[in-house]
């Protein structure tokens, strides 16, 4: 099947190096200590953060660090066909673990020993790149909750179809069976915290695809920064400062 036309357009009319439209909103869940909605094209994800608070399960308490827990779930209505078991399946457990490890790398857990930080991410609409959207939403939610972080974590996916590196795959391109690289970076510190890939890719092409994903992450980082600054400015303005 042709994923990149001879004119250089993808199935949804994007250029190979073009990302989908992103949109973010902070503070959507008023009961949570921090929350955010993140949309990448048609993929919509909501993240809620609770904490830092007292550890609920004493046996899991860590005396030198905060305990970070993460739960990823997809809403029943998020995919084309209604899902019957949105939580607890292998894929959800794996993605929960991946998001937890990625966020743990950027949270300054040693500043909050013996406490617990819960991150709940739910996919409302899935169209490829849910992992990345979840990480971006979790970053914003953590910043909204005032949890100390080294830097943002931003994430983006990239692939390689019809001999072209493609940025930000949607569901159709993702299910094509080609390589799918998901990258998570700390943009200011220039460090990689997440690097996952499906399928196979020759190593010289991997470099190009990874570079493309890094650029996507940096673009998302500047957008996230804007959203966070706007939110902070709004709070300041409202308090009359």
């Amino acid at each position, binding site marked *: 099947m042709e994923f990149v036309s001879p004119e250089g357009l993808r199935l949804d009319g994007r250029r190979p190096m073009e990302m989908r439209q992103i949109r973010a909103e902070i503070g959507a869940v008023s009961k949570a200590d921090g929350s955010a909605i993140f949309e990448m094209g048609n993929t919509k994800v909501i993240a809620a953060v609770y904490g830092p608070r007292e550890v609920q399960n004493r046996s899991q308490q860590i005396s030198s660090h905060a305990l970070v827990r993460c739960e990823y779930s997809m809403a029943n209505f998020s995919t084309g066909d209604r899902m019957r078991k949105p939580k607890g399946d292998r894929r959800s457990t794996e993605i929960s673990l991946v998001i937890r490890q990625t966020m743990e790398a950027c949270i300054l857990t040693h500043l909050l020993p013996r406490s617990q930080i819960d991150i709940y991410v739910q996919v409302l609409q899935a169209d490829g790149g849910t992992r990345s959207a979840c990480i971006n939403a979790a970053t914003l939610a953590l910043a909204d909750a005032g949890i100390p*972080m080294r830097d943002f974590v931003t994430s983006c996916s990239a692939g390689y179809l019809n001999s072209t590196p493609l940025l930000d795959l949607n569901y159709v391109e993702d299910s094509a069976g080609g390589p799918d690289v998901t990258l998570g970076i700390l943009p200011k510190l220039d460090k990689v915290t997440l690097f996952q890939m499906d399928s196979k890719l020759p190593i010289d092409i991997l470099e190009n695809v990874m570079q493309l994903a890094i650029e996507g992450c940096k673009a998302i980082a500047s957008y996230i920064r804007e959203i966070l600054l706007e939110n902070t400015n709004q709070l300041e303005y409202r308090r009359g400062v």
Partner: protein
Amino acid sequence: MEAITLIDQSVCPGDVVLDVSTIANHTIKLGGGLRQDGDVISVTKSGTLRFSNPNKYWVQISQKRYVPQQKDSVLGIVVDSRSDNFLVDIKGPALAFLPVLAFEGGTRRNIPKFEIGTLLYVRVVKANPGMNPELSCTDASGKAAEFGALKDGYMFECTTGLSRMLLSSPTCPVLDALGKKLSFEIAVGLNGRVWVNAASPHTTIIVANAVMNSETLSGAQQRIMVEKLLQKIQ
């Protein structure tokens, strides 16, 4: 110095505020929201960067949860009682301990009996990272000074930024405007909890609503809002 351009600006986690190697022989004091990473001071929480002479930097943050600090006055809710401590929730990373003897004239014979759910106005005595904070119902000299259980009234939650604004001096505009027309008592906890009590539930509700609304308004707007609110009911 990058610091000069970012002071009084909004900052995000990861932003570099200062490069220590460019300043000669200086001691800098870092407050909340900043950390040193080798040669560089970077931001860990989003907020507004503040500076006070000669060398104090900090990020002014407003959030829903509380970071326990010594000498703060907070509103806590009793969750449990042990033989030597009450366990009190102050919206921090850990439950706080209130020793049963930390009351004016407190001895083993007259330990107060607080039920679970009692609202207390307390002072934070110790707040070390990783340890449960310690509270007291007396001021530094041992007098009761308004600390203790708050009876009746209504408690609601807000952000730490609103609490600080309500406690700022000169008196915050919304409290000033309300105080001129209504009679009520109010206790503001720096941990994002506010308690209001008045002779009638009617007045309590007006004060609570006015305070909650004022989170999103400037000084002048607060006065106008209070005026409109009072006009409607009188």
